[in-house]
């Protein structure tokens, strides 16, 4: 976090605020922190006191040029409205329909606190479980090496593949508008790739598409790679999700 450079920081803002600022997950988290700091019960909040401190925080966040999420501002409006209701008893019922009333805010805080506590508990569980060790063996050891891309495919993989295709289509469309590039055929590219792989070199898939290559070159390279894989002259290997994909020459 950037240090406060402004000299106009209000005296009422204690330095501890600055340390705590970036850890608030949202307006409810901040509100909960203020309630606990003031040793209030959630069901018995002093709206006036909490609202004042809440606004001080927002003020500080702005002074520090922190990105204040819109949810924080909505909560500020809610608090100010609740405060005004206490000072000026409601005269116009229609006016308040967009705002939560106090009871609703209390319920939301109680529910949020429940899950925040559950999250803390889950963390304890993870920490406990981190102390036990399973067998750390290589699951492929001693089992037949199939040398195929072993993807435990999930819906997420499928979606990624689909998005990739739609982007490729888009790329191809772009290309047809500027055909003045020197032609490289898929066959030539295949030969070039095979030569590189001949030496036993592994090529990282994304490295094939260097940013200096032309769009045409990238498309041709992509098609050549797919063709080599289809013809089973090259195999693409990935050891796990999101790992890099490597191209390896298949044994004849």
């Amino acid at each position, binding site marked *: 976090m950037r240090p406060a450079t402004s000299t106009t920081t209000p005296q009422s803002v204690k330095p501890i605020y600055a340390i705590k600022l970036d*850890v608030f*997950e*949202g*307006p*409810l*988290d901040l509100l909960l922190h203020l309630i606990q700091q003031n040793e209030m019960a959630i069901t018995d909040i002093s709206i006036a006191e909490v609202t004042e401190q809440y606004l001080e925080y927002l003020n500080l966040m702005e002074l520090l040029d922190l990105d204040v*999420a819109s*949810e924080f501002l909505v*909560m500020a409006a809610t608090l100010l409205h609740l405060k005004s209701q206490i000072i000026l008893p409601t005269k116009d019922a229609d006016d308040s329909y967009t705002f939560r009333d106090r009871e609703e805010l209390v319920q*939301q805080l109680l*529910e*949020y606190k*429940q*899950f*925040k*506590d*559950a*999250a*803390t*508990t*889950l*963390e*304890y*569980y*993870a920490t*406990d*479980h*981190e*102390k*036990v*060790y*399973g*067998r*750390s*063996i*290589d*699951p492929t050891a*001693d089992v037949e090496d199939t040398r195929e891309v072993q993807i*435990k495919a*999930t*819906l*997420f993989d499928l979606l990624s593949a689909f998005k990739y295709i739609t982007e490729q289509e888009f790329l191809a469309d772009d290309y047809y508008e500027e055909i003045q590039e020197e032609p490289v055929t898929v066959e030539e590219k295949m030969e070039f790739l095979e030569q590189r792989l001949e030496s036993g070199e592994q090529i990282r898939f994304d490295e094939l598409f260097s940013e200096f290559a032309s769009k045409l070159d990238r498309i041709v390279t992509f098609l050549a790679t797919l063709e080599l894989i289809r013809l089973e002259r090259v195999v693409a290997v990935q050891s796990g*999700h*999101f790992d890099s994909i490597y191209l390896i020459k298949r044994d004849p």
Partner: protein
Amino acid sequence: MSDTQFQLVMDVASPPVHNPDEMRSVLEAVLFAASEPISLEQFQQLFDDASTWQIRQQLMQLRDEYHETNRSFQLIEIANGFQICTHAEYHPWIQKFHTRQIRVKLSASALEALAIVAYKQPVTRSEVEEIRGVNSDSVLNSLIEKRMVRIAGRKPGPGRSLLLATTDEFLEQFGLKDLSALPSLEEIEEILNREDPE
């Protein structure tokens, strides 16, 4: 290990198993050679005609044997399966020896969103957002990417929003046998009071 994985049935010959002792030895060898939890159904595919009940019985005996012979490891139920793990007390020594498998690291906001999904599943994005009081899309996407949360269908009715639920990897990460092993809200209070005496 996920039950939704579709498995190819291969004709690999293996010797027949004649009695419970043999079955127990085979179960032990397979458990020992695995680095992930194994479900009863997965074990069942090893034997021609064994019930999951029979398999569980042998696993329970294995567990007792480890206990009685004071082994440093134990058989635990986790993520809808079984796994052999060391006892937690040996953590300081093992830690000296090897850098462990990298576990999924979750930020505080990810943990919060994950807790909501775990307890409210199946749940929509907007329900999570409502409880947290802050937009949770990016944190939920990151949980999906880390395989802690999965898309579990659609909510019936207008909008047909996607429903989110937790994965077996989630259970594994937090050392839970199954979803019913999640602590109840009363237990959470007890746990927090114990860990954080004020």
